């Protein structure tokens, strides 16, 4: 290895590590703070590492909100949200890309145009609609809007257009009905896009803040971010409790991410067969 190359490698690792430290530092601070007692968080000089680690903050988090229930709420909402988004969008994409009807280009353009509408514009009427349907404090209010996701439709239309017509024709000649063609040919061939969309949609729903904040006000209905935000009092923030809550709230999504990474890879590999 030449000196220049070695310098380049050293430089690479120095810069990468600095960025990694900056990314990680707030998390390390969170862990450290979460293990301090109420007195220790206000000691001067501050303790970078808690001198007498204490689990008080965690006890308080678990007594202040029902963690398992909240995780259950979040999981139920995000999984339903993702499944409905993928199914409804794939069906629409199939109609646009593989069935075709008069005016389908125009309708697709309308879909794309609605992507420009900020959610805040439709928020107030949607609040009224959900109220009318008595869906406030019902998971339906947060899940139902997933039925219309123009971005997912757009991505899936792109992928479905790439499926050769011959494949569909072959299935039809073998006597497959249109629903079978959709389920047995179109859906599997969209797996790469579907798996990417699944991850992004799930994350979007899991971390969503504004809409669940408006819709789910009862403690036992709250999602993780909303329940977490209620830990924040108005006076004298108890940072140890807030940090313990933040840490606990991150555990499920990190586990899901580690598991989904494997699925992700499988999805990509399944995508390898595409014609």
């Amino acid at each position, binding site marked *: 290895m030449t000196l220049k190359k070695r310098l380049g490698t050293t430089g690479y690792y120095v810069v990468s590590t600095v960025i990694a430290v900056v990314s990680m530092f707030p998390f390390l601070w969170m862990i450290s703070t979460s293990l301090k007692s109420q007195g220790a968080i206000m000691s001067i000089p501050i303790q970078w590492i808690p001198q007498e680690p204490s689990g008080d903050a965690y006890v308080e988090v678990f007594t202040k909100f029902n963690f398992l229930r909240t995780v259950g709420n979040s999981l139920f909402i995000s999984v339903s949200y993702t499944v409905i988004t993928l*199914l409804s969008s794939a069906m629409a994409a199939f109609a646009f890309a593989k069935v075709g009807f008069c005016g389908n280009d125009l309708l697709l353009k309308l879909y794309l145009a609605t992507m420009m509408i900020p959610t805040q514009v439709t928020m107030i009427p949607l609040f009224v609609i959900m109220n009318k349907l008595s869906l406030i404090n019902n998971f339906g209010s947060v899940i139902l809007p997933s039925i219309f996701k123009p971005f997912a439709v757009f991505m899936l239309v792109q992928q479905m257009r790439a499926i050769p017509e011959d494949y569909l024709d072959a299935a039809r000649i073998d006597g497959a009905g249109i629903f079978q063609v959709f389920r047995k040919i179109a859906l599997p061939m969209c797996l790469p896009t579907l798996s990417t969309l699944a991850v992004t949609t799930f994350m979007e729903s899991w971390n969503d*803040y504004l809409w669940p904040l*408006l819709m789910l006000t009862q403690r036992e209905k709250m999602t993780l971010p909303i329940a977490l935000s209620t830990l924040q009092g108005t006076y004298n923030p108890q940072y140890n409790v807030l940090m313990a809550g933040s840490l606990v709230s991150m555990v499920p999504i990190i586990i899901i991410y580690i598991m989904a990474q494997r699925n992700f890879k499988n999805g990509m590999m399944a995508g390898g067969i595409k014609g």
Partner: protein
Amino acid sequence: MPQKANRRGGPKKDGLLTAAPFLLPSLLGLLVFSLLPLLVSALISFTDWNGLDQLLAPGFLQEHFIGLENYKNILSGAELWKVLGNTGAYIIMYIPLMLAASLLEAYLLSSTRRGVSAFRVVYYLPVLTSWVAASLIWTSVLSPQYGAMNNLLALFGIQGPGWLLDEKWAMAAIVLVSVWKDAGFFGLILLSGMVGINKSYYEAASLDGAGTWKKFWRITVPLMSPAIFYVLIVALINAFQLFPQVMIMTDGGPNSATQVMVERIYRYGFRYFRMGYAAAFSWILFVIIMACTAIQMKAQKRWVNYDA
């Protein structure tokens, strides 16, 4: 009944009956969750509706219709300009910092050196964190007296500011958490643009004696300009919709230094129940976002390179 085999070169255009069952759920969603609320929102913005009276009941418009009054009040008041100024300050700091950070991360992750996958996970951790958790963590980090940031600065002899409590620094603090959380997300998008670049360009440049720096600016950046363009569009739209960080970290304070559009819409609509006023605010936001996106679309012709 069902459509017979399609002609080669694309689907038939008369499959409405076949398409209907596939289209129905999504179309229903389009109507109920997008088009209908859009119309109603426009209507509400011309009223002084307080959220209590039955919306659109008989006599609703006679009682509540006030024409362009909301828009007039917003556009002539000082608040909108204050809020736009705050948002502008956020954008001016956030966009260059976020772009620099995510370009750097993408560049580092495009390497084939050992350990890259570990760095990828670490860079992605902030993206996995919810805005609520990220905002709480940074509120603690930036706590003036007992927080990590100022105590770290003190080690270098620097007296840190009051961050979220100081109206001069509050928006900068919000930029900090936003860059920290978003860099990994946009970094991955840029990375996908970066790895698609043909290696032979770099080899040719090396033969011509170009260094790493020159190769990055003359080859990598121009050839990934579509990805950069996409990131800029999304980041700017997100910037105008800045919300959870503000709600959790400052609640719009101190002295309204971090009041932004969505925070105002939320406050007027769901705290003061001035639904008409909030709806008008949201339409102004809509117009601003559309105008900014249109300007970017126009300007892209000057610098985005689709020939790669």
